[in-house]
């Protein structure tokens, strides 16, 4: 059974179309990456899944229930970390963790202590004294210390430093081993790449790609650099080969996943001495999907930054 099943979801805010027929399927037990640039509709989708907002059209099923009508019952089985965590100025971090955990139905105090230690959080500080990263830790600890079936995390590490990011990844793997389902929204590509079994790429309120990382790599270009015994000729004419740069015995080109085999066969006729291939990163994957738009806006260098 799917933990999350969304089809044709639509949501407008006045003239803004936030979701435009979004389909999403998260299988039970998988870590699912929900990837897209700012404003794509990730948060809106999550809010609808949590029954905080109501969809204008389409259907959404969460753990077999209706997120709007069965909200309270479903919430016992879900832990949520918002992208922008705001805490109560006069409550300490420790109090906020307990509060959120108990309102959900209780939390494991051993795990709570361990998480506070690993995330290096001072639970005695008042909410107003925490930085963005520390506020996020509070929400993460409250979520990870609860025994729930589904974790919904909306850009949960945007304020964490790299060390804490590693701790976070550890706990997500643990959650997966424990059989929990994780929906992880992000625009940080490396994070999704490391953690997720499957990925859905969202853009302008629609999922444009969905599948395993391997399936997506198939759709992308690999960059090949090779030294050959004799100068390579005729490679640029092959289908799926792009950006050929050749100097004497050295060649560099990009090739579509579907044509990799033919290109390497052609290359081997010139006597390969050394070969490096760079697998496509999710950045490139994103760039291929948003490339036209991004290039038009002149911001492509920022995405890959």
């Amino acid at each position, binding site marked *: 059974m799917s933990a999350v099943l969304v089809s044709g979801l639509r949501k407008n805010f006045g003239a803004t179309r936030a979701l435009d027929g979004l389909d999403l399927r998260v299988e039970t037990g998988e870590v699912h990456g929900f990837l897209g*640039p*700012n404003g794509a509709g990730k*948060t809106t989708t999550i*809010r609808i899944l*949590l029954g*905080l*907002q*109501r969809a204008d059209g389409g259907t959404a099923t969460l753990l077999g229930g209706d997120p709007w009508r069965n*909200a*309270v*019952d479903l*919430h*016992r089985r*879900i832990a*949520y*970390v*918002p992208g*922008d*965590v*705001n*805490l*109560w*100025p*006069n*409550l*300490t971090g*420790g*109090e906020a*963790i*307990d*509060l*959120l*955990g*108990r*309102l*959900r*139905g209780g939390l494991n105090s051993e795990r709570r202590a361990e998480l506070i230690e690993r995330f290096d959080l*001072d*639970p*005695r*500080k*008042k909410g*107003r*004294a925490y930085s963005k990263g520390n506020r996020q830790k509070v*929400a993460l600890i*409250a979520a990870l210390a609860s025994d729930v079936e589904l974790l919904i995390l909306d850009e949960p590490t*945007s304020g964490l430093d790299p060390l804490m990011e590693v701790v976070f990844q550890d706990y997500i793997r643990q959650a997966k081993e424990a059989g929990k389902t994780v929906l992880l929204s992000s*625009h940080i590509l490396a994070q999704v790449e490391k953690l997720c079994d499957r990925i859905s790429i969202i853009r302008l309120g629609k999922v444009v790609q969905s599948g395993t990382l391997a399936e997506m790599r198939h759709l992308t270009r690999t960059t090949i650099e090779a030294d050959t015994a004799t100068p390579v000729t005729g490679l640029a004419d092959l289908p799926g080969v792009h950006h050929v740069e050749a100097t004497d015995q050295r060649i560099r080109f990009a090739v579509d996943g579907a044509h990799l085999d033919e290109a390497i066969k052609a290359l081997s006729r010139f006597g390969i001495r050394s070969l490096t291939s760079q697998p496509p990163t999710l950045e490139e994957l994103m760039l291929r999907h948003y490339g036209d738009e991004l290039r038009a*806006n002149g*911001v492509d260098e*920022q*995405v890959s*930054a």
Partner: protein
Amino acid sequence: MSTTTATRPAATRVSGRTRPLAGTGTLLRFNLRQDRIRLPLWIGGIALVQISGPSSYEGIYPGAAERQEQATVVGDNPAMKALTGPGHGLDDYTYGAMMTNEYLGFMVIAVALMSVFMVVRHTRTEEETGRAELVRAGVVGRYAQLTAAVLAAALANLVLGLLIAAGMAGQGIESIDWTGSLLFGAAYAAVGLFFAGVAAVTAQITEHARAASGMAGALIGVAYAIRAAGDMADSGLSWLSPIGWAQATAAYVDDNWWPLGLAAMVTAALVATAFALSDRRDIGAGLRDGRGGAATATPFLGTPAGFAWRLHRASVVWWGIAVFAFGFMYGSVIQVIEDYADNDVVQQMIEQIGGASITESWLSMIISILAIVCTIFAVIAALRPRREETSGRAEPVLATALSRTRWVATHLGIALGGGAVVLLLSGLGLGLGAVAATGDAGYLGQVVGATLGYAPALWLTTALAVAVFGLVPRAAGLSWALLVYAMLIVYLGGLLDLPGWMFNLSPYTHIPAMPADSFTALPLVILTAIAAALIAIGLAGFRRRDLEAT
């Protein structure tokens, strides 16, 4: 982070560290732009009420004889003096003298509030939300934000003062000349500026915008109370209050400018203090350092009710203490009223008016004012869910197994129940003050009962706030309109001879004004029923609507 399209910095940039005022002009324009709707409403509303004063008084007191009669009412009665002012020009009670004595002292509260909200909004609120950090990271000097906030408030007060001066003098009403009107407008502006200075200081002291506004607002109350007590007893106490200074100008009577000079000096000192304090703290921090707190929540805090209580606890305690003190202060001056009531002529006059003793009439009026003040607490508490919603704190809470209805109900319970407790405490204060002053224990029961009678009006006003929250959350601020209206009716209704339906719009009018009137249950039942219906509507609306995101 990586996909944000940052705006390029402008070409000419100088380091903000070296120029503490760099960027002030830009910030000032930005502040005024942010306030482009709110500010004209404040200024226009205040000016309108003030400017329509003289012409309505022309209708109520057409001749010198009627005006002199009013002079004896407000001049001889200490209770009226407490409500109005020191009474300059009572010998020849012109329309101008009436404005300074009867309008100015009360209306400047609105100007003070406008200034406080404005300064806090552009300083501490910005810091609390973290926006200030963004701004200061740009090329903006250390003092720019505070300077821009104070300048914006100064500009607003200047415009308001000029508008009032022109609006008053422009009507060509006898005794309301240009000289007096300019001073009158300046008195408004001076009080506004004074409290802008107060807010500039409180915004440095606390880390929270609400606490900063609250402190400055409490000082407005203190300024009003000091003036009331001073004028009532004819002691020099009013000289400790900026509202007293405004009325000491005796605009339209003696036209003294120098009290405003005093105001200007103290205001300058306040602003200087604010700047000095701002040097001694980090951005986002208060002057007081937070200490370490509890590492775990108590079992009670983990429950929905305990959670709500924790958020309201400090507010309930402080409001309780404040209204008790406020009530006690009024109660303890009752002896002055009783002495005055011994005068036979006065006795006749008052009995003709109300059919009750002057002491009872006075108590009834004070109680209705206390009830409205206590409602401020209840409305703030009832709107807490809205603040939780807009700050984004409601989102993780409502994503737990806590239902929307239960969540609002916990806050509402504190607003309604806590409101009744605060009301009770104000009545206790008033009653005990009266008992202490007169030695007549009979006052206590009488006053406490009369005060509690206002609970249904408090509930109705609170329930209206809940209905607005549920149905049109963006208009939640409008919930205050009914309270402001009720306050205006209490203060100006009697003076202005308004039509009956305008009185009836205020729920507080329908409560039997005990002890002057006798008790009737029906209006209380009806108001409570309306309150219940409004709450049901509000809850149903909230269950159906989207939670608004930040």
